[in-house]
């Protein structure tokens, strides 16, 4: 019988632009914060997993943490880097190979949109020359189609972004801390219809780390949050992803987020209706809308009324992205998945300060990214 797994420590670096600081330094800040939070020392950690998309190798952090000789595996899994690192740490505990494991993710992206190379995605150079290697196009096409099919309004997209900035203003660690009105968001420059500049997250900077342990160690440390379930999935046939030269199959595209969420809930033995607070990938505000349905929190189209009624606000029925999400914190690719877990752990412990949800018992995290990968967790106190 394998042990249960608990989160005993969660730490973040500052998020947002930090000139003169390297991604590795942000990772070290996060690891040290997570260890302090857990009441552990680096020498207690028995196995580690981590990575960044473009800010260096996680296993080099031992040069500054201490050369303790533990196995430290680098993870490079796009937007799921943090989620995959956490999954590996969780499996190390479950297997009995370690009792204390660390997952860390970090990044430090330059200003502006990502500039992917067609060759890295198996596409001819012509796609780049024609202006099709632009990540934001995918999000625009997906939500535009979804809005037409399910009656989601442009106003809803603006309200979701408005919530992100409002929650960010309550989060001392957020990058964007200024409230922006839905009217201003809707009136901002159009990037890719129907998404305006203020509806998108920006590539950013930050590090996040999570310490997981066996039940026995968690009982000794206290303040533990139980990990009820976790799952990482890659896309199945018929999915629609960024930089796809085509979408194969007919009918509604498959959703890797739906697969990962269903697997995490099945492992946890609870369902979406049991969740009190959630973190959903909000690369742009349309993504949060669609992920509500893909992760099982509502039926397609119900988001229009949910958002209008404030159900996803901090005081609502299902608070979503209480820390401001990617829109207010930016998107350091390697860190985002673990930032989400940090926020849910903070909420479940009742330590979220001004943005605290009233007595949440069960929380959920969902990260999604290219080229069709998703990681979800279900956490509880």
């Amino acid at each position: 019988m394998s042990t249960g797994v608990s989160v005993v420590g969660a730490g973040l670096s500052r998020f947002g632009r930090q000139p003169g600081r390297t991604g590795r330094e942000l990772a070290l800040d996060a690891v040290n914060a997570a260890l302090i939070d857990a009441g552990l020392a680096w020498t207690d950690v028995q196995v580690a997993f981590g990575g960044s998309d473009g800010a260096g190798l996680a296993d080099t952090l031992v040069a500054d943490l201490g050369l303790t000789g533990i196995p430290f595996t680098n993870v490079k899994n796009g937007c799921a880097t943090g989620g995959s690192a956490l999954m590996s740490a969780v499996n190390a505990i479950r297997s009995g190979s370690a009792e204390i494991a660390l997952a860390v993710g970090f990044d430090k992206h330059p200003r502006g949109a990502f500039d992917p190379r067609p060759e890295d995605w198996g596409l001819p150079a012509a796609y780049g020359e024609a202006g099709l290697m632009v990540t934001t196009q995918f999000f625009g096409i997906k939500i535009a189609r979804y809005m037409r099919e399910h009656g989601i309004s442009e106003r809803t997209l603006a309200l979701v972004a408005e919530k992100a900035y409002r929650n960010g203003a309550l989060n001392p660690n957020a990058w964007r801390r200024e409230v922006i009105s839905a009217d201003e968001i809707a009136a901002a420059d159009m990037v890719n219809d129907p998404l305006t500049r203020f509806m998108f997250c920006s590539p950013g900077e930050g590090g996040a780390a999570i310490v997981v342990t066996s039940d026995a160690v968690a009982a000794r440390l206290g303040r533990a949050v139980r990990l009820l379930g976790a799952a990482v999935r890659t896309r199945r046939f018929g999915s629609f992803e960024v930089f796809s030269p085509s979408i194969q199959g007919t009918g509604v595209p498959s959703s890797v987020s739906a697969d990962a969420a269903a697997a995490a809930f099945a492992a946890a033995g609870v369902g979406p209706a049991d969740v009190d607070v959630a973190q959903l990938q909000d690369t742009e505000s349309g993504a949060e809308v669609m992920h509500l349905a893909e992760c099982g929190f509502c039926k397609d189209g119900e988001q229009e009324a949910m958002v209008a009624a404030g159900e996803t606000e901090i005081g609502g029925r299902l608070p979503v992205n209480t820390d401001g999400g990617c829109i207010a914190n930016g998107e350091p690719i390697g860190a985002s998945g673990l930032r989400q877990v940090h926020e849910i752990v903070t909420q479940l412990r009742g330590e979220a300060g001004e943005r605290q949800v009233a007595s949440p018992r069960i929380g959920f995290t969902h990260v999604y990214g290219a080229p069709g990968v998703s990681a979800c967790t279900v956490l509880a106190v």
Partner: protein
Amino acid sequence: MGRSLTGSRCLHCATVAFPPARGCQSCGGSTQETIALGSRGTVWGFTVQRFAPKSPPYVEPAGGFVPFAVGYVELPEGVKVEAVLDCTDFAELAGDAEVTLVTAHPVPRFATDRALAGSVRTGAPT
């Protein structure tokens, strides 16, 4: 050149792919036949590229950047192909608009009937 798109069909499960597949994404089958895809389809979804993409890799047209539409065209063979979409007004592309293949290279490009009739082109270089 390029007045039809070349795709493939899996000899095991008949899944259609574009560009031609080495292995089938649906069944894993390794044997595909090359097929010509239909040149007329409907706009499954689209957006408008409102800002000039980063250059390189983007190559601006001779007259400078103008916003252009990009989306997926659903073809009768059962595959949706990413394409630049020519139109006289972006609103023409809404609601399952029918479009016709203009060129397959360097990337697929389709046009609405009005764009074809008026020879109006928006967007990236052909």
